[in-house]
């Protein structure tokens, strides 16, 4: 009886299995295969096996190194900023009058499509007429070429990413703070704990698992960063704001059509993502979440 049901349960999962086998598993093996060839979509010749040549090229590729460097910068600067700011805003809003009003404004950036956010930031960063340069002029800072200067363009992308994703960190951690039992907080204050001590010993332990979850999700998402870069800087100036995703796109499907090389890059990116995902699965306690 039970086995019979289990068999029909697998039948129900067939559409998903087809989708995933056909559009993820098969393509991946296909991609790993291509990464060992010199497949190029703009050339008319049959792809040839070139072994590890594509992988070897990566280490001599300065633009690839630059895009890895920028991605690492995002990981080291944007993600920690988002985490700290998100945590800070969560505690701040948890503690003021009109929580839901403030909350619904702060979460807006994560609700808009990244492409549209890109438009907004492109306008704000405009050299001649942009409001950002106008605000800076109050502080006596002369017009900054946000999109023309390699360093400032990177800063610009980081700010836009922080703007869009801090709300996500905030919302997750804020919802965690809501679940801190009120009597614990009261007990702490009766015992004479300062605000800081209450945060340190009552709030933080409760939201710690969420901090890990949101941190890993942000790390993986930053590796995927594409839309904002495409819209705001178009990867420029030069290749200053190429992220890994953007560079793969450019090499494989936009300017180079060198699918072989782009696949090799993707395989490496995938390895990084798989490692992070494994950490996440451990942290999430999947078994309990799904009731397995």
């Amino acid at each position, binding site marked *: 009886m039970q086995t019979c049901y289990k068999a029909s349960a697998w039948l129900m*999962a067939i559409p998903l299995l087809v989708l995933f086998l056909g559009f993820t598993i098969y393509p991946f093996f296909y991609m790993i295969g291509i990464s060992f060839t010199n497949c190029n979509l703009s050339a008319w010749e049959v792809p040839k096996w070139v072994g590890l040549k594509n992988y070897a090229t990566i280490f001599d590729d300065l633009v690839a190194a630059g895009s890895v460097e920028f991605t690492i910068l995002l990981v080291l600067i944007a993600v920690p900023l988002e985490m700290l700011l998100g945590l800070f805003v969560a505690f701040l809003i948890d503690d003021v009058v009109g929580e839901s009003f403030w909350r619904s404004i702060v979460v807006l950036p994560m609700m*808009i*499509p990244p492409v549209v956010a890109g438009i907004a930031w492109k306008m704000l960063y405009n050299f001649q007429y942009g409001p950002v340069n106008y605000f800076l002029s109050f502080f006596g800072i002369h017009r900054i070429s946000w999109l023309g200067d390699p360093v400032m363009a990177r800063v610009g992308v980081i700010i836009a990413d922080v703007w869009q994703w801090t709300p996500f960190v905030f919302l997750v951690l804020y*919802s965690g703070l809501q679940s801190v039992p009120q009597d614990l907080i009261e007990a702490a204050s009766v015992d004479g704990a300062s605000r800081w001590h209450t945060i340190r010993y009552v709030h933080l332990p409760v939201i710690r698992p969420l901090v890990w979850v949101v941190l890993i999700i942000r790390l993986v998402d930053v590796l995927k960063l594409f839309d904002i870069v495409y819209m705001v800087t178009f990867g420029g100036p030069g290749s200053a704001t190429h992220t890994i995703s953007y560079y793969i796109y450019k090499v494989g499907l936009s300017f180079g059509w060198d699918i072989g090389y782009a696949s090799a890059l993707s395989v490496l990116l995938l390895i990084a993502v798989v490692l992070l995902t494994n950490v996440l699965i451990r942290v999430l306690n*999947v078994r309990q979440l799904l009731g397995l």
Partner: protein
Amino acid sequence: MHSIKEIFKYILLLALVIFFFFPIYWLIITAFKVSSDWFDWPPVFIPTRFTIGNFLGTEGGFQGSLATAISSITPYLSNSIVVALVTALASMLIGSLTAYAISRFKIGGMFFASWIISIRMLPPIAAALPLYVMFSHLNLLNTKLSIILGHLVFTTPFSTWILITFFNDIPRELDEAAYVDGASMIRTFVSVILPLSAPGLAAVASLAFIQSWGEFLLALILTSSAESQTLPIYLGRFITGWRIAWGPLAAAGLVTMVPVMTFSLIMQRYLLRGLTFGAVKY
């Protein structure tokens, strides 16, 4: 002393709120600015003249700027609606079937569950490369079907995951009662489980809609003409143009943003549940 600290707190909060809200405010007002206000110094923060010409295409622009109007957006808008709706419905359907199987019969166990998570983590670019090659062999490039299939790969894991958490909350005794009464599994699923999880289904469909509507990379790669391109691609093409007419661009952005933002705000809690794999329930 205490009140100074309080005031300081609100000032800080206000500054943060301005930071988060200002870019959206700017987008909205630019969409309604007359063309002489697009480029002005100091920038026009509180416009006194408003126009809907940016939406209608009557506001013109300036010499050599890209012309745009609702009429030129229409094909993209309708593509977006078709793609997002089909994606939403299909991923709700596929997701609910699988979720039921996992929730009640634990098929695939941890492996299946981890697999679904890893698809969520998958960088779209890594999927886009082989999908592009595959679809070009199948002659599916530049069709709406190709985008829908591409989007389904990313939305279905979400849908499945969220629905598993919903189905787990429905008492198992209900299924068993139905089985005892002689209902088949599909029958039980359709007439017992689905009606009880209607809010979950609505949430899942809206989330898939949101994801599909705003998705950029896959749609960019898989399409090449107005026959199948979605709104975000239209915006992307627009912005890389040489002289950008800000008003119409912001107007087009607003059209893209409004449906998603509305949905997201309504579905906030489920959105969060989906984004964090149910680690957050509030």
